[in-house]
């Protein structure tokens, strides 16, 4: 298991050093500094073996976190732990910086003592930790409080404490998607996928039992067959927009926050959970089928002689006219020997950026079912380089107010049997944001 954990600043000075195992000596601190932080070559692997000691590291801004071990540990677990450690620290004192770490070093030691015992990660949910590790010292607790803390830390619902109360029960769901595309010059989709996240922010009293439903094809088909109309259909939270009449979507794979009961999902494909208080990433998913591509890029590149290129790019928006896409940016690469560029565009602003070897065309807003066009004349310096210009793909950035995968939230039901508020009293908000991932069209 993890033998020790060190935090360094960018100079390699150690800010935090906590050793859990006897086989890790003080010299390990220096070994990492010399061989990794001060190494001449750029780091080639996040795992380094120095003299039979393995170092796992992650970097956050200019802070290095390193876990050390001499055993055959679960490597994936070590990295997951380091990320979690970062999350916990961020939740306690904000950005991970040298200043913040120094200001909170006592707290960090206290946390490290709690979430890592003999190198074994223990409960690391901030919700639970905050009940008994605070920056202001421990208040003297009553006996009930103490046992409540311990049962929560070790219990089945380690991520949420009891007795949370809100005057207004409210929850926010964000469906955040990034749509990736690689398209051939002829408009053929070479590869496309959406990776999405459902982020939930909840302010709910008590221990609410939640059930989340979306237009997952498997669930919809199952219901269709059974002929039974689930109560779910009635309380539709929908209103997404984009793609039109798509009823259900095929999800390639999804992963869930640890609060979701996985065996239930596996058996009935229903997503039920008691959420942590505040924000959490409920679910991540991937889809590859029937993706709504919000934009289509039509490139036309013509070489006029050896010293001139003519480029014409048309973009078409492909969603409901009532919706608006924002932050649109089209990046058209230019050859290295470009000497000058003249651009004409119908909408937005376009500029040739020599340092980036690209024409960058920005449009603030664009409604659905519209098209816009840019044309450019690129002057080239004559070169004796025989190699042809490789024509890198045209890339695009944008943000649209719908989910390109077609995912729709059908319902999120809240039950809290002990307190007297019902599902109808909870105020629910759903928002869909689709962003471009790597969205490229070859030319």
């Amino acid at each position: 298991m993890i033998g020790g954990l060190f935090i360094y600043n960018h100079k390699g000075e150690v800010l935090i050093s906590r050793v859990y195992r006897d086989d890790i000596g003080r010299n390990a601190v220096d070994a990492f500094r010399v061989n990794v932080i001060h190494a001449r070559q750029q780091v080639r692997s996040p795992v380094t073996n120095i003299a039979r000691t393995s170092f796992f590291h992650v970097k956050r801004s200019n802070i290095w976190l390193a876990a050390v071990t001499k055993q055959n540990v679960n490597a994936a677990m070590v990295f997951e732990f380091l990320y979690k450690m970062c999350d916990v620290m961020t939740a306690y004192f904000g950005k991970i910086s040298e200043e913040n770490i120094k200001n909170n070093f006592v707290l960090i030691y206290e946390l490290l003592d709690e979430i890592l015992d003999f190198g074994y990660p223990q409960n690391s949910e901030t919700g639970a930790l905050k009940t008994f590790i605070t920056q202001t010292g421990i208040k003297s607790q009553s006996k009930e409080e103490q046992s409540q803390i311990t049962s929560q830390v070790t219990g089945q619902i380690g991520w949420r404490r009891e007795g949370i109360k809100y005057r207004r029960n409210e929850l926010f769901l964000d469906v955040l998607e990034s749509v990736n595309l690689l398209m051939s010059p002829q408009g053929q989709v070479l590869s496309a996928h959406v990776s999405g996240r459902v982020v939930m922010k909840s302010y709910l009293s008590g221990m609410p039992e939640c059930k989340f439903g979306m237009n997952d094809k498997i669930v919809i088909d199952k219901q269709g067959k059974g002929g039974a109309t689930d109560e779910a259909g009635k309380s539709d939270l929908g209103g997404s927009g984009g793609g039109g009449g798509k009823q259900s979507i095929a999800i390639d794979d999804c992963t869930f926050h640890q609060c979701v009961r996985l065996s239930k999902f596996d058996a009935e494909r229903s997503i039920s959970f008691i959420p942590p208080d505040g924000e959490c990433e409920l679910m991540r998913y991937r889809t590859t089928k029937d993706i709504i591509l919000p934009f289509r890029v039509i490139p036309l590149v013509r070489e006029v002689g050896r010293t001139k290129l003519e480029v014409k790019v048309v973009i078409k928006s492909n969603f409901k006219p009532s919706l608006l896409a924002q932050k649109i940016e089209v990046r058209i690469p230019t050859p290295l020997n470009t000497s000058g560029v003249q651009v004409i565009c119908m909408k937005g602003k376009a500029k040739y950026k020599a340092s980036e070897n690209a024409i960058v065309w920005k449009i603030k807003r664009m409604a659905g079912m519209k098209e816009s066009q840019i044309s450019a004349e690129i002057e080239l310096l004559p070169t004796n380089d025989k190699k042809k210009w490789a024509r890198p793909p045209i890339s695009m950035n944008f943000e649209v107010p719908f989910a390109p995968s077609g995912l729709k939230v059908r319902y999120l039901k809240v039950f809290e049997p002990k307190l007297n508020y019902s599902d109808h009293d909870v105020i629910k908000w759903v928002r869909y944001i689709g962003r471009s991932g790597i969205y490229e069209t070859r030319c």
Partner: protein
Amino acid sequence: MEWANQLCENRQFGSKMTDSKYFTTTKKGEIFELKAELNSDKKEKKKEAVKKVIASMTVGKDVSALFPDVVNCMQTDNLELKKLVYLYLMNYAKSQPDMAIMAVNTFVKDCEDPNPLIRALAVRTMGCIRVDKITEYLCEPLRKCLKDEDPYVRKTAAVCVAKLHDINAQLVEDQGFLDTLKDLISDSNPMVVANAVAALSEIAESHPNSNLLDLNPQSINKLLTALNECTEWGQIFILDCLANYAPRDDRESQSICERVTPRLSHANSAVVLSAVKVLMKFMEMLPKDLDYYGTLLKKLAPPLVTLLSAEPELQYVALRNINLIVQKRPEILKHEMKVFFVKYNDPIYVKLEKLDIMIRLASQANIAQVLAELKEYATEVDVDFVRKAVRAIGRCAIKVEQSAERCVSTLLDLIQTKVNYVVQEAIVVIKDIFRKYPNKYESVIATLCENLDSLDEPEARAAMIWIVGEYAERIDNADELLESFLEGFHDESTQVQLQLLTAIVKLFLKKPTETQELVQQVLSLATQDSDNPDLRDRGYIYWRLLSTDPVAAKEVVLAEKPLISEETDLIEPTLLEELICHIGTLASVYHKPPSAFVEGSRGVMHKRLPARTGSGESTESPDVGTIAGGSGTETAPSIIPSQGDLLGDLLNLDLAPPTTTGPPPPTSGMQMGGMDLLGGGLDSLLGGDIGGSAAMGAGFGAVPAVMPASLNAPMGGGLGDLFDLGGGVGMPLGAYIPPKTVWLPAMKAKGLEISGTFARRAGVIQMELTLTNKAMSVMTDFAIQFNRNSFGLAPAGPLQVLSPLSPNQTIEVSLPLSTVGPVMKMEPLNNLQVAVKNNIDVFYFSCQYPISMLFVEDGKMERQVFLATWKDIPNENESQFQIKDCHLNSDAASNKLQASNIFTIAKRTVEGQDMLYMSIKLSNGIWVLAELRVQTGNPNYTISVKCRAPEVSQCVFQCCEAVLKN
């Protein structure tokens, strides 16, 4: 430590942004000041002082002098202060054992505290203090805490047992803590279960045979229940532990798999990977035709792909593991090529790993896409990545034959870029392509030669020299090119020197007239002016060869080389199996077994995949990892002395390092004479007695089939006789001759019916034919011819049918065969296409000869050589077959086989199982090694066949079966 001096504001304790002041640089007399503050009456001041002490400790300052003063602060109600003092204690107790005792009382008292958080803190900290005297006092509080009413205390105490075990294992056993820990596996609280599992697993690792984790269906059921309820970390502990369990049958295996699969949707990648490990391992036991097996395979792909959207460090871990999974079960991800395409902003370590997997997944179906990607990558900036991409193009060419042409043209394009390292890398891989597809792409040599001057890396230079030497006859100025390298001969690396020596000798053999001077120059450079023994020895061998028998030299040096295999970088199967059992761990990241990087006994036991079993059939539980009576491959190496590698190396002439597949077959037969040859060669060089060693020289180069007996005798004499077990006894038995079969029915040959068989008599292969005339007219003018075949069989004389064959007459003819005819690989290997002519027409037929015809009489390998060769042949070349219903004992079998020139070299008896080690030599010099396992009372034999040319294994097996059953 030069940390920024922070303002030493004297703010109230507890407010934010104050702690960094403790990191301020040390002033003189600081320790003294701290001492005073620690002893202050004011609580706040005390706490401030302890914080300063901890800060100094962190940066590596020695504050152990303050030990008594800090320990004095321990008795406090303030939990924060207590924690700080404990932290200090854990660091310094070992250096001040006597004073640490002062703390014991407080610990013991704290373990009784009404607050469970304090009880847990005390027991947690006590376990971290590695001082014997304290450890003694720990036992009682620990015993209480293990049974504490509060789960938080119990889960902490569970880990504490592991801590104590690390300090004093005997004490833990004596105190009976292990049993208490086992009881905790049935605890009602899932986190207690998880920690108990983690502690037990760790303790079990240092006691491989203790059966501590007594896993049985009941306890497994408990673990699976806890799996659904505990924290993400607890799930990892439980899954990692489950992976060590060996289910009793496929039904149990399936039911565990079913309960583990939901974990594949967990957001924590480590949970996913550990679940994958359990599934990959238990799947091994499921019958492949089971529906569930297919379902499971399908379920594995999506989560593995999802891992690639995790943070880069985890992606790296995932990719290293996927690399293993793809080798073990390529079907899982075969359709997912695209997700491994490199993204522009991937970190370099992710890019390199993705590239590896892309090549593993490359197939005819996706090769076009892969090549297009690789070409893109070759224009990136990172040198290592570009090199690997270029190399990958070459590997694609070798792996997917249909793509070879496109790969070569892509490589040529890349050479045109003139980027130095791209060119060099391309030349190295083109050499491999030449090896794989000889005489196909040599037209590119001219382009390669243009870049000769830019090569500055040994590997590229060696590759280029190999190409020039190999194709010397097609390169007009080959001599000039090689001569240019010769100028700086002594500055070259050994690799280049060896290659240059060989290339010039090749050139000489191809163009003897013009290059005599050159070859003399290189031989003297290698033998007289070099200190490198490898180079010198190789130089001498060539010298001797050339001076005694140039014809033989030609046959040795210009021998046809074996084709290189497609996958040269696959992980060896037994290691792969072990690594699959370590999915998710460091071992799977390093691709090394834990014993390679873990010190001491911990975790070094070898894990193995479970064997496939039928329903209800129970196997020995291999969960402890040590397996009694391993297979032949496992035991063989242990008795092999490391010897005789020298010649192997010497003869390994033209095989460049990355694609070494072993010495070429025509030379492999020479190993037995190795030591002698060298000795003789050196003697004669010293004494100048050329005549004396001439015979030996001839033997060296001659076709192995006529290996002189004199060479064989002295070697086989001394040592060989000792192990000569079954030899000599069963001699009277005749060699196996299959019954005659009809090869050419009369219907198809205008009345001529031919049936026949093959026999080996006194070292001569004979084709025995029965010709029957079923036509109405007389047949005359018989002649026979063979098509080119795998072993160069050809008639040694004309077909002796002296008298005309009248209608309804039958004659028997025996045709002696030689093995020096033209060679062409046939399918199947032992297929022979024959044309028979008579006065009426020419008729064609094909027949298959038993490969035993080709087993030569001197096929008895010396024992030592056998062992070395067995070890030397890669395990992939081993094939295993079953011979069913054979009722011979091992000695009878050995005799029977010997009659057909299958020689038993040694026999071992392990647990009632006889193992016969046998060697066979084919007429073309290929050695085949075999291990026959005979179990008394079991009519089914197992035969493992190992050969440098694995294609022959099947034939050899068929032949052994025929011999034994006859």
